[in-house]
């Protein structure tokens, strides 16, 4: 078997000849655009949207290439190839993002066509990972594995991917457009803070339909989405999505970049937006957009369950260190005898979401051995092996440990989301990564982390909120104040079913004092918590005042 041959049972969508031909044409087109740029036939203003639609940014130190990982699903051959790309064209690292993608921070413009060729070898690309178009759809990292799932969202995520790829009408939208879809009643995709959030569900007859929310978002104007419809039948899914996008493309603001997201249009129009979508939907020639069950079945065949063995659930080995890891990293699977394993990319003092080429290869090997070659990227910048036999967990843990990937901190205070911040990003106004590193070092003791329990800290290096600080239990936003990096704190955000935007609690902290401030918040929580309460529970019960008093008390 060639290293680039996809594993037999990994449920990644398998390209056919047409998909491959399309990708080759797209690469040739971008190569031509780069040549025109270098020859001066395209100005930077003209080239910029073209390169962005191929995932290429110009950042603080270099170009950055963002590669699409469709709905966060990878097979081992693809992950291995990403490692090879990191080694050959980057500095040996890749950075997994909150959109379940991967970024290479040291890309050269003239290398990009070769990098895209390497991606195409494993049916991957960088299309629409930036630009004012429909971005990579995100979904539940435990899709197809989690016991609480009603509908496997992967098939619909792939349908959305094909539908949105170089969509002739929606490639020059007012602003970027992000869709998230989940098939579980427990929202793990932050559906309500997306441009469109979709909840796939079933009616009493067992038919699939979709609850559609629109107009959520973070950034400088965080808004919780509006529910447009409780039920869109499966066959009308794409028709309805078309209708939403048509109204947005026609009416979304284009003058002011900060008012151009769909959330502003939906907020301003309110129910009128819903009515406009409905009118468009009603008058569409719906046969043209109808998603026949046969199509769903044909795409669905790519996502058929792997051949699970008939096993029974079992007790984990006694090894205490292993058990500590398993208590945070191992999650129940719908199939008896199996489990899903989350791999932390948050080593104490490390860069959240970073993986070395060696680590990518190690995870690819372990996925082949233990998870049918299937890997997921999570929106909290970790990886998942979705289908692991419980009897293999100990061996897997040892393999992860050897690769430096067994930090037992999933869901704990050091499992931090951080955007690249000013260390890499041209837009950032403050650094994020070193704040994350210092917080995780401060709380390095695992006993202490377990005692604190579930606590989500998210850090953004500017108001654009790529680090999702608004929806963290403790959100940290770095801004520039007269040349100084300062950090604002928000409390009480949530990205799950009870989605909420965190509350800004008071004056910002300096680069030097922000970690102390986080520690003060934690000690305040510990002092006030009732048995069994998480940080967020205590915060909701006692409110912001005790935390404010502790932070801003006169010394």
């Amino acid at each position, binding site marked *: 078997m060639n290293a680039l041959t996809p594993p037999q049972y990994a449920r990644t969508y398998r390209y056919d000849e047409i998909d491959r031909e399309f990708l080759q044409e797209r690469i040739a087109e971008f190569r031509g655009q780069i040549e025109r*740029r270098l020859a001066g036939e395209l100005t930077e203003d003209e080239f910029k949207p073209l390169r962005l639609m191929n995932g290429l940014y110009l*950042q*603080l130190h*270099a170009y950055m290439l963002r590669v699409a990982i469709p709905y966060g699903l990878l097979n081992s051959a693809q992950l291995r190839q990403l490692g090879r790309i990191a080694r050959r064209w980057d500095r040996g*690292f890749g950075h997994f993002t909150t959109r379940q993608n991967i970024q290479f921070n040291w*890309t050269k*413009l003239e290398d990009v066509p070769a990098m895209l060729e390497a991606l195409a070898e494993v049916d991957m690309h960088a299309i629409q990972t930036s630009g004012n178009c429909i971005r990579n759809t995100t979904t539940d990292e435990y899709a197809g594995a989690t016991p609480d799932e009603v509908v496997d969202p992967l098939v619909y995520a792939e349908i959305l991917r094909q539908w949105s790829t170089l969509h002739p009408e929606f490639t020059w939208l007012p602003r970027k457009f992000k869709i998230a879809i989940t098939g579980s009643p427990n929202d793990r995709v932050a559906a309500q803070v997306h441009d469109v959030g979709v909840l796939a569900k079933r009616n009493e007859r067992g038919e699939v339909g979709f609850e559609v929310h629109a107009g959520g978002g973070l950034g400088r104007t965080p808004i919780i989405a509006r529910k447009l419809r409780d039920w869109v039948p499966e066959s009308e899914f794409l028709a309805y999505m078309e209708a939403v996008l048509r109204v947005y493309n026609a009416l979304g603001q284009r003058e002011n970049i900060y008012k151009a997201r769909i959330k502003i249009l939906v907020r301003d129009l309110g129910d009128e937006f819903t009515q406009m979508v409905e009118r468009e939907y009603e008058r569409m020639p719906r046969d043209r957009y109808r998603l026949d069950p046969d199509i769903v079945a044909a795409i669905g065949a790519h996502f058929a369950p792997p051949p699970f063995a008939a096993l029974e659930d079992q007790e984990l080995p006694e090894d205490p260190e292993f058990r500590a890891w398993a208590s945070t990293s191992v999650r129940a699977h719908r199939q008896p005898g199996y489990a899903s394993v989350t791999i932390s990319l948050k080593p104490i003092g490390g860069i959240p979401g*970073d993986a070395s080429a060696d680590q990518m290869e190690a995870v690819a090997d372990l996925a082949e051995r233990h998870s049918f070659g299937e890997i997921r990227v999570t929106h909290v910048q970790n990886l998942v092996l979705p289908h692991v036999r419980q009897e293999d967990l100990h061996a897997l843990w040892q393999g992860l440990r050897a690769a430096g990937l067994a930090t037992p901190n999933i869901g704990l205070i050091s499992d931090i989301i951080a955007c690249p911040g000013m*260390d890499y990003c041209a837009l950032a106004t403050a650094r994020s990564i070193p704040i994350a590193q210092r917080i995780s070092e401060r709380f390095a003791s695992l006993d202490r982390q377990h005692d604190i329990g579930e606590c989500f800290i998210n850090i953004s290096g500017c108001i654009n909120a790529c680090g999702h600080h608004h929806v963290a239990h403790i959100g940290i936003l770095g801004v520039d104040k007269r040349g100084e990096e300062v950090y604002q704190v928000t409390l009480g955000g949530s990205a799950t079913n009870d989605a909420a935007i965190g509350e800004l609690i008071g004056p910002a902290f300096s680069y030097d004092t922000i970690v102390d401030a986080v520690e003060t918040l934690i000690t305040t929580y510990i002092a006030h918590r009732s048995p069994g309460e998480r940080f967020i529970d205590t915060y909701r019960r006692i409110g912001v005042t005790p935390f404010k008093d502790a932070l801003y008390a006169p010394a």
Partner: protein
Amino acid sequence: MSTKAKARPATAPVVFTANRLRDGRVVWFGTEGLWRDSIAEIAPFAPDAAEAGLALARQGERDQNVVGVYAVEVDPAGPIPLKFRERLRVQGPSVAAEAA
């Protein structure tokens, strides 16, 4: 970003920075009139020469050599940018892993 240089007259000596078009690497431009990889290899423009310096630096964009020219105020000893963001641009990321 390049409009910033015009918006406010420079009060300190300035150099210009941009990214090289072909590979994106950060480059610096001073009174020598050439784009250099290292800020240490260039001499800053006096504040009253900043406007003229910008016009020279912009030629690099027209020649398809560089992208995103903007002015950076510096302490002439070094020179060292006054703002932290541009000091990061000189040093590279402040975080360890990828600097190796």
